[in-house]
C-alpha cells in the first residue's frame, strides 16, 4: 500500500504533457521587470537608481526586515525605470525595470557547474548565505526560507521532508528538476541536514513520477540517512500538512506548523536553489517554469530569469494559440489568472498555463443540492458549503468558529461542486474578512 493522507482529496486529470520535456535554457529576455515583492511579508527596499549599471546577481533590493528577502538582478544591464507594473496579484506593484546588456558576457555564462559535494561552510554561515541569496519557498507559497530555517533553541527536529510531490495537474517543473539535478538535490538536502542538525530526511514523490523515484534510488547509498517515499497520487498532497501526515503519520496541530511535530518541509526547487547558493554562490535569479497548455505548439520546461515577462515565455513556445481565454500563473488548482501578458515571472512562478475557450469558462452557479461532496473532499475536515454561506452573509465570527482560517485554499471543494458554486471564492473572502476583524479587534 502506498502512503497518502487519509481524509479528503481529489484526482483531477493529470495532464502532465511536459513530463518528458527536458529543461531548456530560455532565450535571454531583452528587458526584465523585477517586482520588489516576490515573497510573503515585507517588500524589499530598492537599492539601485535609474540608469545604474547592475551586474548579474547583484543585490538590487535589500530585505526589508526579518520577514522579507533580498532581490538580485537576474541579468547584467542597466536600470531603466522604477515603475509600477501589474504583477500576479492583479495590481500594480513596484518593479525594477532592467534592460539587458546583450554584449555583457556574464549574461551568457554557463551556470551549469560541476557537482560539488563537500560542504565547506559552517551551519551559521549556511543560514546567513541562504538569507543573503534571497531564497524563498519555490513551491508557490514564496515563504522566505531563512525564516523557516530560523529555529528556536531547543526545538526538537527529527525529520527534514523534501516535497517532490508536485500534485498540481499540468506542472512538471519539480519533476524535471528531480530527474536532471538529482545529485545536486541530494547535496542540498545534506547541506540543510548539516545546518539544522537533523538526522533523517525523506523525499516524498507521488507515484506518477516513477522515473524520479528510480533516479533517486540509484543515487542514494544504503547508509545515507535520506529515504525516498513513493506516495499515492492524490491532490493536494503537496500541502505541507497533508505531506507530513502522509509520510510520517503525524498530524500538524490546528493553526500549528510542521515544526510543532518535529518536521521541516522544503520543496525540491528550494533545495536546489540552496545548493546553488551554498556551493556555487549563485543567488536566486532563475527558476524552472513549466510553460504548458493543451493547445500550445511546443509546451516545455525552461530555466527562466526572474522578471521575464510572460509574453516572452509564451513566444518561446510558439505564441498564444487561437482561442486562448485564460492565462494562469501556476497550476490549474491554485494558480492565479493573470490580467495581461506583461506580468513578470517571479520567484513563485512554477508554471504558465494557457487555457483555451472550452476549459476557461466557469459553469453557471446553481443552488446547493447539499450533496456533501465538498465536505468529503476537504483535506482539512472543513465544511466548505457552510463556510461559503457564512461568508456570504457576513457572519465572520461564526465562520471563524468553524475554523475557516485553517482552509489551505486547495480548491478541492470548488473543483468537485456539481452545482459549480464559487465555494473557494467566498471562503477566501471570508478568511480575509476574519483576518481584518481580528486585526481591528486587537
Amino acid at each position, binding site marked *: 500500500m502506498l502512503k497518502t493522507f487519509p481524509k479528503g482529496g481529489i484526482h483531477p486529470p493529470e495532464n502532465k504533457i511536459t513530463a518528458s520535456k527536458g529543461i531548456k535554457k530560455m532565450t535571454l529576455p531583452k528587458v526584465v521587470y523585477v517586482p520588489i515583492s516576490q515573497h510573503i511579508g515585507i517588500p524589499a527596499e530598492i537599492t539601485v537608481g535609474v540608469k545604474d549599471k547592475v551586474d548579474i546577481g547583484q543585490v538590487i533590493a535589500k530585505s526589508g526586515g526579518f520577514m522579507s528577502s533580498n532581490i538580485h538582478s537576474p541579468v547584467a544591464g542597466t536600470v531603466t525605470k522604477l515603475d509600477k507594473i501589474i504583477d500576479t496579484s492583479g495590481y500594480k506593484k513596484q518593479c525594477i525595470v532592467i534592460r539587458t546588456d546583450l554584449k555583457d558576457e556574464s549574461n551568457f555564462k554557463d551556470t551549469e557547474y560541476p557537482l560539488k559535494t563537500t560542504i565547506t561552510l559552517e551551519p551559521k554561515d549556511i543560514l546567513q548565505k541562504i538569507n543573503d541569496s534571497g531564497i524563498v519557498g519555490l513551491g508557490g507559497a514564496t515563504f522566505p526560507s531563512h525564516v523557516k530555517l530560523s529555529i528556536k533553541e531547543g526545538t526538537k527536529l527529527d525529520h527534514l521532508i523534501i516535497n517532490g510531490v508536485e500534485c498540481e495537474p499540468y506542472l512538471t517543473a519539480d519533476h524535471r528538476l528531480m530527474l536532471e539535478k538529482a545529485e545536486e538535490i541530494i547535496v542540498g538536502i545534506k547541506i540543510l541536514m548539516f545546518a539544522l542538525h537533523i538526522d533523517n530526511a525523506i523525499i516524498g514523490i507521488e507515484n506518477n513520477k516513477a522515473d524520479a523515484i528510480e533516479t533517486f534510488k540509484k543515487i542514494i547509498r544504503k547508509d545515507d540517512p535520506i529515504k525516498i517515499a513513493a506516495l499515492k497520487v492524490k491532490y493536494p498532497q503537496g500541502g505541507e500538512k497533508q505531506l507530513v*501526515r502522509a509520510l510520517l503519520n503525524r*498530524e*500538524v496541530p490546528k493553526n500549528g506548523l510542521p515544526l510543532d511535530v518535529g518536521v521541516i518541509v522544503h520543496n525540491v526547487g528550494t533545495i536546489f536553489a540552496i545548493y546553488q547558493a551554498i556551493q556555487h554562490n549563485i543567488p536566486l535569479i532563475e527558476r524552472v517554469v513549466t510553460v504548458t497548455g493543451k493547445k500550445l505548439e511546443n509546451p516545455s520546461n525552461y530555466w527562466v530569469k526572474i522578471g521575464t515577462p510572460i509574453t516572452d515565455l509564451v513566444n518561446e513556445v510558439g505564441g498564444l494559440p487561437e*482561442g486562448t481565454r485564460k492565462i494562469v500563473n501556476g497550476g490549474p*488548482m491554485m494558480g492565479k*489568472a493573470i490580467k495581461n501578458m506583461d506580468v513578470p515571472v517571479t520567484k513563485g512562478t512554477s508554471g504558465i498555463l494557457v487555457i483555451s475557450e472550452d*476549459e476557461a469558462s466557469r459553469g453557471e452557479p446553481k443552488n446547493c443540492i447539499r*450533496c456533501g461532496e465538498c465536505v468529503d473532499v476537504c483535506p482539512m475536515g472543513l465544511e466548505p458549503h457552510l463556510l461559503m454561506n457564512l461568508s456570504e452573509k457576513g457572519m465572520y465570527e461564526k465562520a471563524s468558529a468553524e475554523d475557516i482560517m485553517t482552509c489551505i485554499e486547495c480548491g478541492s471543494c470548488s473543483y*468537485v461542486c456539481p452545482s459549480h458554486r464559487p465555494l473557494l471564492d467566498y471562503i477566501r473572502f471570508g478568511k480575509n474578512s476574519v483576518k481584518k476583524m481580528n486585526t481591528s479587534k486587537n
Partner: protein
Amino acid sequence: MSAQPIIVSASPHVHSDRTSKKLMYDVVIALIPAFLVSVYVFGISALIVTSVAIISCILFEYVIQKYLLKTDVTITDGSALITGILLAFNLPSNLPIWMIIIGSLVAIGVAKLSFGGLGFNIFNPALVGRVFLLISFPVQMTSWPTAFVNNTSVVDAVTGATSLGIIKEGLNMGETMTEISARIPSSTNMLFGFTSGSLGEMSALALILGGLYLMLRKVISWHIPVTLLATIFIMTAIFWVANPEHYANPLIHLLAGGAILGAFFMATDLVTSPMTKKGMVIFAIGIGIITVVIRLFGAYPEGISFAILIMNAFVPLINKFFKPRRFGAKIKSKIV
C-alpha cells in the same frame, strides 16, 4: 491575443465534469429497472401512473416558477422528473389520476418550491406527496392491485393487501406467524417482484441493481442504504428470535414493503440527507428504528415513509452535531 478579452477568475481553473444535472439523470437511469419490472407486473396502468406523476410534477414546477414565483424555471435540471418518478413509485398502480395530480402538486408546490426550490427543501418532496395522499385518501392508497391480475383494466382492479398488510391484519386477528406465512408471497417472489404493493417497490432485485449503479457512479455512498437495511434486519431479527410466532422473519421485513426503495432512493436523496458520513449513519439508524417501531407496533403496516420524513426533520441537527473531524484537532502527541 484572441478577439475576446481574457478571463480572470479565482482558482481553481479546472472543474470536474460532474454536474447536478448529471447526478439527477443518473438517479433516473437507476430507477429504470424497477420501472420496467412494474410495467411487466402491472402493465399499462403502471405506465399511466408514472407518466401522469412525471408530467404533472414538471408542469407544476414550470407553472409555479414562471407565474407564481416569477423566478428562473428549473424544470430541466431533472429534480422534478425524479420527484415525479419517486412519487409514482410510492403509489398503487390503480390510483385515480386526479389524486396523482394532487399528490404532485403537494410534492412540488408545498414540499419543494415553498421552501425555496431545489436544495432548500427539508423534506423529501415525493414522500410528502405520498404521505399527504395516504392520509387524505386512505382507502384508495391502501388498495393494492394484485400482480398480473389486472394488467388491462384499471377501473375494476382486483386488489389485495401487501405482505406487511397481511401480517399486520393477521396479527391483529390473533393469528400466529405460521398461519399467516401461508398467505404471504415467498421470498423469491418478493425478490423478483411478483407480489402486491405500490408501484415501484415490486422487485427488490431491480431496486438493488439501480442502487448499485448509483453507488458505482458515486451519486450515493453505501452508508445510508447499508446502515438502514442492517438496522431493520437486526431490530426485526431480535424480535423474531424472541417470539417467532408473533413477529415476522427479518427477511420478510427487508424484502416486503418499501424498505429497499426507501433505503436506496428515498433516504439517500442528496438534499434531505446529512452531509457527513457519520451523520448519514446516524440518520439511517434513526430511520431504521422508527420504521421497525411503526411496522411492529404502529397502526400502519408500513412506516418507512414516515420514518424518512421524521428523520429529514433531524438532518439540520445532525449536520450541526456530527461535523467532520477537523485536521489537526485534538491530537495525541505522536512525536517519539
